[in-house]
């Protein structure tokens, strides 16, 4: 099973929270390779602490996106001094998928933000 950029990137059967997590992982990796612990830290920072993802769940996301070809293990040469940790990076496909998804979601989100609050029963 391979993703193509034309398609919504992630499986609809996964939970919405994880789908957000997928996008978050791609967003972080979009800025450069990262190890697991760093990924979790960065996600927490970017979401202002609202999304705290546990390692067990994070690796499930990585495993799934690795299979789908969206992320991959960074070659050892790219690793920094801390050799104990594996680094992950986004693939070109992952970048395209993330951008397509973000654009789509961005439009939807913008529309929601633009909606004016409606008071129940009131006439305008």
């Amino acid at each position, binding site marked *: 099973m391979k993703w193509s950029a034309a398609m919504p990137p992630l499986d609809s059967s996964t939970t919405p929270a994880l789908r957000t997590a997928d996008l978050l992982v791609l967003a972080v990796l979009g800025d450069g390779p990262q190890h*697991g612990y760093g990924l979790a830290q960065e996600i927490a920072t970017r979401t202002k602490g609202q999304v705290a993802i546990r390692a*067990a769940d994070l*690796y499930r996301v990585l495993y799934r996106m690795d299979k789908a070809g969206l992320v991959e293990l960074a070659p050892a040469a790219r690793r920094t001094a801390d050799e104990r940790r594996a680094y992950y990076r986004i693939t070109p496909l992952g970048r395209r998928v993330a951008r397509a998804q973000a654009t789509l979601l961005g439009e939807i989100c913008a529309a929601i933000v633009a909606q004016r609050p409606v008071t129940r029963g009131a006439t305008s």
Partner: protein
Amino acid sequence: VKVRAQTPWERWIALCLWCYPRRFRQRFGADLSAQYCEPATGRSIRAALQAASDLARGGLGARADDLCAAWSVRATGSGVDGLLVDLRHGLKSLTHRPLFALMVIATFALAASLNAAVFAILDTTLLRPLPVRDDASVVSIGSEWINFRHSSVSVPEYLDYGERSRTLSPMAALTSASFNLVTTEGVPERVLGARVTASFFEVLGAAPALGRVFTPAEDRPGAPGVALVSHRFWMRRLGGNPGAVGQPIRFDGGERLIIGVMPREFRFPAATTDVWTPLSINPADPPSRGSHNRQVLARLVPGASLARARDEMHAIAKQLAHEHPQVYPPGSGWDVSLLPFREYLFGSFQAPLATLMAAVAFVLLIACANVANLLVARATERATDLATRAALGASGLRLARQAAIEGLMLGICGGAAGLAAGAALVRALVAFFPEALPVPDRVLTDPRIALFTLLITAAAGVLAALVTRLKAFHAPPGAALRHRRASPDAATQRVRSVLTVTEIALSVMLLMATGVALRSFVRLTNVNPGHEIAGVATARMTALTRYASLADVADYYQRLTGSVAARPGVRHAGLVSYLPLSGQANDWGFEIENYTPPNPGQPPDEQMRSVAGDYFQAMGVPLLSGRLFDWHDRSDRPRVAIVSALLAKKYFGDTNPLGRRLRFHREQPWITIAGVVGDVRNHGLDEAFVPILYVPAMQQPERTMSIVARLEPGAGASVIADAIRAVEPHQPIFAVHMMEDWVFRSVAASRFNLLLLGLFAVLGILLAAVGVYGVMAFTVSRRTRELGIRVALGAEPTALLTLVLGRSLLMAAAGVLVGLAAGLGTTLLLRTMFHGVQILDPIVFATVSVLVLTVAVLASYAPARRAMRIDPLEALRTD
């Protein structure tokens, strides 16, 4: 990456990691484990539980993701679109190799036709609703005696049951009957029918197709004569003319008005029943309670269960035994038995049919293994194709589905072809064995049979196709792509060999069953019947009603017998009330002078036959002592009897029975035993000799008797008909058979079962032979290169021959061993079908083994020759 656990904590984390799929652990295991083993994290029990819970959730979630991905609707080629693609692909690959597809379809069709035929018979007898309303509520009431199960009921009993039972209503009595039909052509015809009370049609809930059924007034004595006819009779004799209802029909003894035609499927009490006439029962003047000669059917009242009805009838039986101790003496074992209608009709067919169904299931399994074998061979040819598709991202599940769809298509095509063949097979069985089994009218158009056949072949097709997707065949895609013509993968060979060995084992089991059945059949036909078979002609007749008194009947029969005996070509002629081996019988209770039965409640009760003329000489039953009857043993002379050797031994032991006396009833005169004759069998050759008491027909006449004539060589059974016609042109005779025919009929069911079993076994071994051939041909063609090298290195052609034949012999031997061992168990099933089955029969074991090994050698001969002829240069050039 192996996760190496050292500290207990690390071990704990490694254990929790097993929640994740294997592929995950290989790729991320070490990294994830490292996350949890940071020195900074706590090592408390609480932390351990927290980690376990996290990892379990994450791991199971990852496994769920894997499953979703495999089934993903969005993956290319899945869903309905994908199904169409698979169907198209399947169709293409079948039409691409039409010969292959044809072979597979033919294999399935063969097995399916047998399954369809046997299932059709099974369905008609055991599964399908009978053409009566709510057949589960209809029961047959019978009498239970110490030596008889579910035998006839007497009229007073029938009246008592109807009066006392609260769970069974309505109730009907019936008795089979035959009529001499007077035809316009002048040749009288014998018609089988039944006399039934008017309630018969109410009990069965049957309505006529035309006209009406009997009214309660019509089964009273003295009512005008009416008759209902079967659909078959209406079509055959009355031209299917609706105007026939209301017209009279002439029977010997009077006209009857046809008041209705029963529907085509209504054939009770027997398939041969063509005419129903009212059975009049006069409650004011019933016949004797001891004469048990009626069958009784009844319907459970709404809400009553069979168990409740049984309890009630047992209670009624106890009451009756109390009220009539002379009829139901203690120790006679008398009771009332209730049988569900279906069991009453078809009970004796159940076990043999189940056995036959098991046998055809075996043939289907063999066919399935064979097809799997073919498909595996084909999958190997297509390994490159499949590997390419796997490399391009087709999931294992997807490839399996593709294979299953191909198998499904093959199975359904085979099933459809098999259904047509099955219908033809059933027609052939009906033509050859009209009486052996109840067979259905239609097979092809019956949705149940069609559905059953298509379902089983579809399942077999899918099963066979999925074998090809076994893990064993899955070389990593890379490997298959690299060696474009790999030598046969060892796993493929192993699976194919296992399939072939399975086939051989299954067909060995079938052959064993056939062998054992054949041996028992041969033993059966070699049994000494106790009388002559060859050159004995028989015919049955009912004296015309013109001969009213029994004395007239006796005179009439004497004239007829004399006429037959006087014909050229006839050595002896005589009469008997029931022929040996005909299955018809009649037993009477009697009392012997100066003899006390060991069980006082159980007076002697044995088979009784009326005989006249030179019956014993004509049948070739030897006289052992005393004298035979002659025409002087008339009713005005002292009454005499002849006993069979077994009867003499049973009641008189070693003492001389001649001159001893017996009587049937207290009021009747004593009968003196005048002779002892040899024993005969009653129902069939598979039965032991029965004690028989013979009385002269002139003293104990019967209206319906069989005439027996011993013929000179070259004379035909038609002399009987000619001789009788010379005396009485209007006397119908029926069942004109040579004694050989009776023997044939008495073993007909066994012969039928044997023939079917044999057919299944032959087809089974043929399929297995095809399997062996397939594997060996495949092996040789795949190993051409290797064999070529051997030749190039100086191997003798005979060595190659031995190599190939040895391998197929090895497979055959393995199959024979497994089959013989497993066959021991299945042969036990044959006890339901054949007489005196011997399980451990060394002759059968040896014959089957030799036969199967020979077939294996023959089947691999052609591939072996091909191996011998391999040209090393040619072989090495092929890439």
